[in-house]
């Protein structure tokens, strides 16, 4: 095993190779690896964040749904109340109208009855006068006894 010039050549070749690797190889590969590691870390962080956002969104969604349900229930209650009140008012109106109509009808009937009674009294009076006329044709003057007749009519009509 003789040491000779080969040693120098091999040493220099090795040194040059290491220098080339240091200059043109290693940094690029390490950079690619580190970038990829960063990308993966970022991706994982983003996924975590997305999960959190999803959780908070679903929570918010629940809350919104709860609120909407409450609101809907309120609206329904109000509507039911309004419905009931409208119904009551309509009923009351109808009853009042009915009463009013009934009152008018009763009044009419009474007027008619009154009138009929008056008419009847007039006729009775006339008949009485006519009967009396016949009896005492000369004695009774319709004009002279008007007061008497009117009193009679009003008595009958009562």
């Amino acid at each position, binding site marked *: *095993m*003789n*040491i*000779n*010039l*080969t*040693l*120098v*050549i*091999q*040493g*220099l*070749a*090795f*040194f040059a*190779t*290491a220098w*080339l*690797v*240091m200059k*043109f*190889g*290693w*940094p*690029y*590969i*390490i*950079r*690619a*690896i580190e*970038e*990829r590691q960063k*990308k993966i870390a970022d991706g994982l962080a983003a996924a975590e964040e997305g999960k959190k956002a999803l959780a908070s969104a679903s929570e918010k969604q629940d809350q919104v749904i709860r609120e909407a349900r409450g609101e809907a229930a309120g609206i329904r209650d109000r509507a039911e109340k309004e419905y009931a009140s409208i119904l009551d008012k309509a009923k009351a109106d109808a009853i009042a109208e009915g009463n009013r109509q009934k009152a008018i009808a009763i009044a009419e009937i009474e007027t008619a009855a009154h009138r009929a009674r008056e008419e009847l009294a007039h006729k009775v009076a006339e008949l009485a006068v006519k009967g009396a006329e016949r009896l005492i044709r000369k004695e009774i003057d319709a004009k002279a006894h008007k007061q008497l007749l009117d009193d009679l009519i009003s008595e009958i009509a009562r």
Partner: protein
Amino acid sequence: MDKLYSMWVSEGGSDMTGYIKHHLHHLEVKVGDGAFWTIHLDSVIFKFAMIAIFLGLFVKVARGATSGVPGKLQCAIEMIVEFVDGLVKETFHGHSKLIAPLAITIFGMVFLMNFMDMVPVDLLPAAAHAGGVEYLRVVPTADLNTTLGMALCVFLLIQYMGIQHKGVGGFFSEFFTAPFGPKGAPANLLLRLIEEAVRPVSLSLRLFGNMYAGELIFVLIAVMTLGASLSSFSFWALAPVQLLSGFVWTVFHILVITLQAFIFMMLTIVYLSMAAEHH
């Protein structure tokens, strides 16, 4: 088979020693006078081929690296990069642009060079022989020059790291003050020098020894049926043994080559981290 082996046999006197010696002989090119001015052309060529594969893959992936969904190749490279990056961050608590790329270069290069041991031991030398090249060793890390060259680079970087993190004054004063304090200055200096000298030697010899031994064992497994004729009893007796041992050693060696690449890388990270820390 006789034919395949005949070319090795013709070299040495005895079959086996000739075959083994031939396998352990580098393709040498002399560039000057003296033993030092020789280049192991095979080590250099295969090292550069491995550099080309490693850099080609790595830089190609780096250029097209996307932070989106990565392709399969990018995924594979990223797995190794993250593994190495994790090791460096675990061991070295400062910030350094140098250590991690250096570590992955060491791991990738040493693994690829070691992996040449998985290629059948006679395949490339035989092909080269057919092309007129007499010697060829395909595992660059089984050449001490390669491993020591890398280890010395690491050694220089350790010193650079020390000066960078402690300043020139702090770096050199530490030679005399650590670990026994200023009173034990000579002992400190001696200890430090030994420590610094031992590191590149142990680093390079560990890898070299493992790979050299691994290669040698592949050669020895190949020797089992060397030159035996197909009609002889010894061939039929040894061929199954050779097949089995070759398989077992290859599987085991996959572990060894990965482990050695890891150890070289890990020790480099540790040494550089230690150099940056204050004692």
